[in-house]
């Protein structure tokens, strides 16, 4: 292998474990409200690198539950922050990693999510009513992991997602919204979980997605934009779910991701030589996982969790 073209797994593990402790920098404070998402990104990465045991499970579970709102059944982004589905999904996903769904009042949490479905099948993010296909994905993913999909109108949920399909084969945040790889992941993921991928023209969308690969080997989020490591997940997992991942050059993408590492201090950035963060570290490693990079656990592209975790949830009686 070429010099430098290796995954600095140990450094990334160390980065994640230390960044978790640095709560008081300006950068951390500005992200304080999404700490629960950060927990999911960091812990899933640790699991993918076979190092989930580097953290204290009980401590993590306790902290997750301190973000729980008893009245509503939802989770906030951090202690004292309002409940929202964005953080509710992360909470459920982290508990899945540790196989600790038993700490939840499952029906209460499921009802919080189910109550947010609207007449047209869409989902609001919280009681304030913002609608976005991100929330459709979150709702279906959360309820599926909790085995409570029967609490919502699945057909309407699917029809709403399909109504956000654009003429280029992609999906936007709401009907008429421009196709964007992040929204596409959410819609494809939602349809995958609902067993409804046949609504997608896979050749058309596959072509739009494979054209995200730039000359530098990285992937962008939509036409005429710069490559960014996070799209290694959004685009790649979408391609995998529709069985078109062979339409991109995986070697070149792998090289791009590896070049975004800070091999000294650990962590991965959006582009080579930029500042690293937990978000891009997760997406870089997740992208490598989807490309079967040695030493990284395989991931489920729809639930965004390690494959063994998802198989355990759905196949173990």
């Amino acid at each position, binding site marked *: 292998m070429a010099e430098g073209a290796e995954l600095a797994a140990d450094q990334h593990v160390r980065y994640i474990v230390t960044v978790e402790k640095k709560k008081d920098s300006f950068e951390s*404070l500005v992200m304080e409200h999404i700490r629960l998402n950060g927990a999911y990104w960091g812990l899933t990465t640790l699991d993918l690198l076979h190092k989930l045991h580097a953290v204290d499970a009980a401590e993590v579970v306790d902290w997750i539950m301190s973000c729980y709102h008893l009245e509503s059944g939802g989770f906030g982004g951090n202690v004292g922050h309002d409940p929202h589905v964005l953080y509710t999904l992360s909470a459920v996903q982290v508990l899945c990693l540790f196989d600790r769904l038993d700490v939840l009042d499952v029906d209460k949490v499921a009802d919080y999510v189910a109550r947010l479905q609207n007449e047209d099948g869409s989902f609001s993010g919280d009681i304030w009513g913002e609608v976005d296909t991100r929330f459709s994905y979150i709702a279906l993913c959360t309820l599926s992991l909790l085995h409570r999909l029967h609490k919502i109108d699945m057909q309407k949920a699917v029809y709403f997602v399909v109504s956000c399909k654009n003429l280029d084969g992609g999906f936007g945040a709401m009907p008429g919204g421009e196709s964007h790889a992040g929204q596409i992941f959410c819609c494809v993921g939602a349809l995958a979980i609902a067993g409804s991928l046949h609504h997608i023209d896979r050749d058309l969308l596959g072509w739009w997605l494979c054209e995200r690969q730039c000359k530098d080997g990285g992937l962008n989020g939509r036409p*005429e934009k710069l490559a960014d490591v996070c799209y290694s997940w959004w685009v790649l997992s979408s391609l995998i779910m529709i*069985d078109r991942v062979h339409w991109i050059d995986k070697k070149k993408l792998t090289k791009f991701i590896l070049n975004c590492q800070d091999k000294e201090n650990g962590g991965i950035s959006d582009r080579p030589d930029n500042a690293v963060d937990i978000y891009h570290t997760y997406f870089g490693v997740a992208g490598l996982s989807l490309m079967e990079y040695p030493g990284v656990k395989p991931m489920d592209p729809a639930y965004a969790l390690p494959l063994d975790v998802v198989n355990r949830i759905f196949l173990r009686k």
Partner: protein
Amino acid sequence: MHGRPRRPAKPEDEEAASAKAAKLRDLQEHVLRNHHSRTYTKEAIGLSFKLLEINPEAYTAWNYRKLAFQHNIKELSDPEAIRSAVDDELRVVEVALRQNPKSYGAWYHRKWLLNQKLSPVDSKREFGLLDKLLKVDARNFHGWNYRRFLARFMGAPDEEELKYTMDKISDNFSNYSAWHNRSILLSNLLIQQRKGFESKQKIFSEEFELVTQALFTDPSDQSGWFYHLWLLAQTSTPDNPQLIASWPCNGTKLSSSLLKEKADQNTHSSIWSHSLKERTVPIVLYFNEPVKGLNQSSLKVKSDLDFGKDIQWMALSTTDSGYSNCWTTYLQIANECSSSQQYSVEVSIPCSDDIVSRSGSNHNSSVHFTFTMELISNDTQDIDLFDKPVAWNCSESLQSHGKCEHIPFDQLKITSALVEEDSNWHFESLSEQIDLFRELSDDNSKFVKLTLARLLLACAATKSRGRSLIERKGYCEEALRYFSDLIHLDPSHKQHYEDERSLVLMDKLTCDMETLMKHCSVSVPLNHVQFCRLSLTRIGFAERLMWVQVLDLSHNSLRSVEGLEALQQLVSLNISNNHISNFTALEPLTKIIFLKALDLSFNEIGVHSIDTTRYICSSPFSHKIQECEAFVECQKKDINVEEYWDAILFFKSLKLAQLDIKGNAVASKENFRTLVMTLIPSLKWLNSECIN
């Protein structure tokens, strides 16, 4: 999180950063405290403004502001005071957007305010704000989403919004967001048949001119190429769904006896049907796009035969909402027969409001076909096709067999839509564009070549509608040359072009009798088609192969067998030496109820940890499978369900007599043989070994 350069921290930086951080921490804590204590004083609200100015992503602060707003507005009755309060909030949003023009929280707060409908909307201010933001970043999708919301909210007509997209595109052709909005608006205007938008032909001609201008001005910008692909799809697909193939087809003669066939070698006219022998006859209907609504009232099957029970039509492609390209019914023949008798079956599909495509267009042409079946009373005393394992003689040249006359090709009637295309406009428009883009093809732009290939294939489709397919050959050959070029020009996307190439190759191989015959033979009593060593990566035009009983696709590069579910007559299939990487990719084979021999050897099953068809097939993860008896059965035999769920779901659906699976990593795993033996009781031959 994005776009910050990597720099080591300097000590001076650290002190300043620490102070900044302390300030922010205090502010956030204070705002949360006010929120939890429901403190909505002017001072408290002011703090939230300070916070959102620095950090518009602090979503709880936006929630707090909404609560404070609702609380304080209750006290106000004077419309001026109310308007002023709304304005204050709008200004906070503007400040936040200055800090981050892509803040979800900021944009939604504004939308939420307008939706409260507490004071009239200042249209100039709103559109003015949008203009400013979209001038700075024409691709800001938050801005475009808000613009669509505003237009609907204010009742601005689509025609006006269309003009705005034209303005943005004229400013700069490279504006995917504007082209996208244009496509949405045009679709709506056409569907609503608004004044000036009645004729698809007129509108799309104008759009082709517009986009061609853009493409010639700057062929390296992608937006125009994507827009062009959409226009092409709009103009080269028929408005209404059409039946393009059936098996049996008009004039087919099926017979259930071998003896009769051998006797009639000169006046040979019937096709031996193994399924007829088993008294189950599939009728397969293949449409040009997914449709639903096939049932006993929307189509009629008439015959003197006794079918035993009601005719049910089933979708063969995976679906949960009922749409499928490919539909089948299994006629159960209940007749007793003393010697030999011929029966005819007539299938009629009238114009129907029930049979509709996804876009809501109905099947608006009337189609019918008639075929005959000959039942022989002693036909059950036939040879066992599997007393020896099927040998695949791939190396033998088929042409030397010279048995092709046993396949009644005249009965195959390979045509496309049974309905002729009236308008010539499609074809003329496509030819014009081909001439135009050929002017650019020397530039070695991949988009030009790809577009030319697509245009040629659209011509092929348009030209052959309702007529013979032979004219497709020329277009296919030219398109193949472009795909070869593209593989060299754009190697990152090589496998995309290889997939496209495979489809075109299959089109070329099956569109006329002369070519197809070179790949056919008869290994009595079954007809046999061979497409080996053609570098095929996927299967296309399966609707032309629905009569095939033995298919050899070995030594290709197949990753997928999608399409084969239409081949309901298939008894033996060889896909050895391909690139099949998971059992889930083989789900289409579980729909072929008469499949008895399957050769999967030397593929890649068991090598890959990522399954790219996991969600395409029916599985517990997508809730298409609830309880599964086979899982329980396997668990009893200590077979690990978490490891083998996909193998279990695949094998439990098949009634194979013969299976070859050596050369796949999965075949040498522990318990795999037990799994196969448990799930396929009908199996006689495993990897050429006899099982007892």
